[in-house]
């Protein structure tokens, strides 16, 4: 713990937060990941892309322990996940926040109550402080103050994602997982959401692992990109990946959509 604190002040020294080695995943006879290796460093925003069915979501679910891998090891904060038993896993869960694709808010609770669920479970805060923290997180993700009293079904898709993000940030995690954060949003909301994530990442010092399809968010906020192609992973910055000769990667970054998104960022 102390070691990781120190290296935060010197960003050039790379500190691995997620370490994946030799990961194999598959369903039945179909292999999805064939001996994947991946490192995610402290303080970076990593975008994960890949075609439909290439196993982006499976990778995310495997890291957070919702899917047991066939082979390989995954370490988060230097501790193995996946097979970690109850209380050790719980300690990891307190240090990360997850934004699911549709927000995954508890539909029987208001937004403020949703944010307070992890606070109630893991801290001994007074109700007063929890109310304040919930209001603070709601403001932090750019929702209007009255959103706290509303139920998820009363919010639009974009607001649900913001509310989901507020809940993911409830315990002030160091690591944030985002599963297609801008899918289903109009371009303007998607843009605002990208900015929000970039801003929060900077001011809260988060490490972000983001699965996405959105080329605009990739170029706007990621430091590095991991491409899932042919059951393997290739990582690099956008510029590095554009020089890559793998056909899928070429097409992805040099196709009409890729061009437009990248042109906008430069």
């Amino acid at each position: 713990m102390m070691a990781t604190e120190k290296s935060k002040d010197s960003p050039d020294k790379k500190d691995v937060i997620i370490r994946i080695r030799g990961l194999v995943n598959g369903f039945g006879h179909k292999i999805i990941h064939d001996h994947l290796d991946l490192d995610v460093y402290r303080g970076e925003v990593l975008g994960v892309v890949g075609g439909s069915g290439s196993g982006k979501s499976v990778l995310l679910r495997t890291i957070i322990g919702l899917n047991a891998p066939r082979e390989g090891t995954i370490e988060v904060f230097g501790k193995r996940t996946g097979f970690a038993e109850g209380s050790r896993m719980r300690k990891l869960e307190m240090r990360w926040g997850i934004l699911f694709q549709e927000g995954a808010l508890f539909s029987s609770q208001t937004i403020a109550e949703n944010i307070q669920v992890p606070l109630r479970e893991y801290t001994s805060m007074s109700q007063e402080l929890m109310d304040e923290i919930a209001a603070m997180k709601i403001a932090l993700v750019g929702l209007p103050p009255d959103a706290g009293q509303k139920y998820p079904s009363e919010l639009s898709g974009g607001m649900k994602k913001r509310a989901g993000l507020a809940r993911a940030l409830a315990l002030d995690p160091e690591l944030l997982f985002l599963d297609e954060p801008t899918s289903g949003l109009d371009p303007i909301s998607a843009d605002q959401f990208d900015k929000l994530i970039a801003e929060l990442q900077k001011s809260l010092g988060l490490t972000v692992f983001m699965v996405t399809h959105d080329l605009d968010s990739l170029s706007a906020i990621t430091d590095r990109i991991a491409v899932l192609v042919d059951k393997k992973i290739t990582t690099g910055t956008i510029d590095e990946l554009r020089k890559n000769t793998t056909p899928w990667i070429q097409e992805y970054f040099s196709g009409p959509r890729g061009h437009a998104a990248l042109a906008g960022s430069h």
Partner: protein
Amino acid sequence: MASIENAAEPDAWFKVERGVFTAGGRWTIAQSARLDQQLRGLETGSNEAIAMDASGIERLDSTGAWLLLRTRRALESAGRTVSALKVPERYTSLLENLDRNDPTRHAHPRGPRMSPWRYRLYRIGKATMHAGHQGWGILGYLGRVTVETGEMIASPRKNLRFAAMVNQIEETGISALPIVGLLSFLIGVVIAYQSIEQLRKFNAEFLTIDGLGIITLREMGVLMTSIIVAGRSGSAFTAQIGTMRVNQEIDAMQTMGLNTVDTLVLPRIIGLVISLTVLTLYADVMGLIGGGLMCYFNLGITIPAFLRELQHAVSLNTLMVGLIKAPVFAFVIALVGCYEGFQVERNAASVGQLTTRSVVESVFLVIVLDAAFSIMFSVLGI
């Protein structure tokens, strides 16, 4: 229980000395519950100026930053001028971000709370309005279904979905045979057993058969079957139609010009009317068999003797009084089941809530209608 607070040593601190508020250590969520309590006890004291120096903080997250900002606000509102709030360089953007978004700055005060009595009154009023709307809604739906049924009778070729109806008869009728049969048989056994015990005191055991026949044919057969079917099929109707609403299948049907009453509701209503009537007859028979077996084992009444006595006790009218209620009950169960299905909103909890409501309402209506039938029959002298 796991707690984020076990993870860290209690090393966050603050003190107020000579007009300076100094803070240090790790101001994180793990410390927040303790810091919150201590900060609330902070003396705002005199009204001289105060400086806030948090530059000694090792680690600050958004919860800790919130506590700092809140303290500054509390000091300011107590009338003290607070000069700069100093934090380490790397946390200034966090603090600015939170300060800019301070929810209390544009918070709207909560309305005054209602007194408990008023709140109770409010709840009663709200529930009454809700029940009224509900009744009005079902009545409106009844009207629509009646009109559509009329149209269907006018041109059955075009509007009746025969295959869907047969499918409903199979699901609501044939699949219900085992459970309805078993329960009716057991109820017959219970009625016969209780009657024998009571009538024995008057040496009138043979009257058991009269009681059994009349109770089973007039009331128990149809009532038991209706309640079982309401729980089994009424709930299924709500859940099926409700799930279709959640998936926007109903919207898709409407935009294709398919009439939802024709395609979804009428096959269910007609199917259930047929199934429930036949199931009632079947339940009557099973109930009599159960009672008859009890009479044979307990009283030694042979089957031919049982049948002869039964013939004296009941007439075709007794059977018809029970059977005539079945289609009415079936209609109510199917109508309520379908109506509630269409009320489902697009969220997961809604399907469950409305399914529960559908069963409660249809069982309630069945029993109320049964009582109404009893009164009507006694007035008519049947």
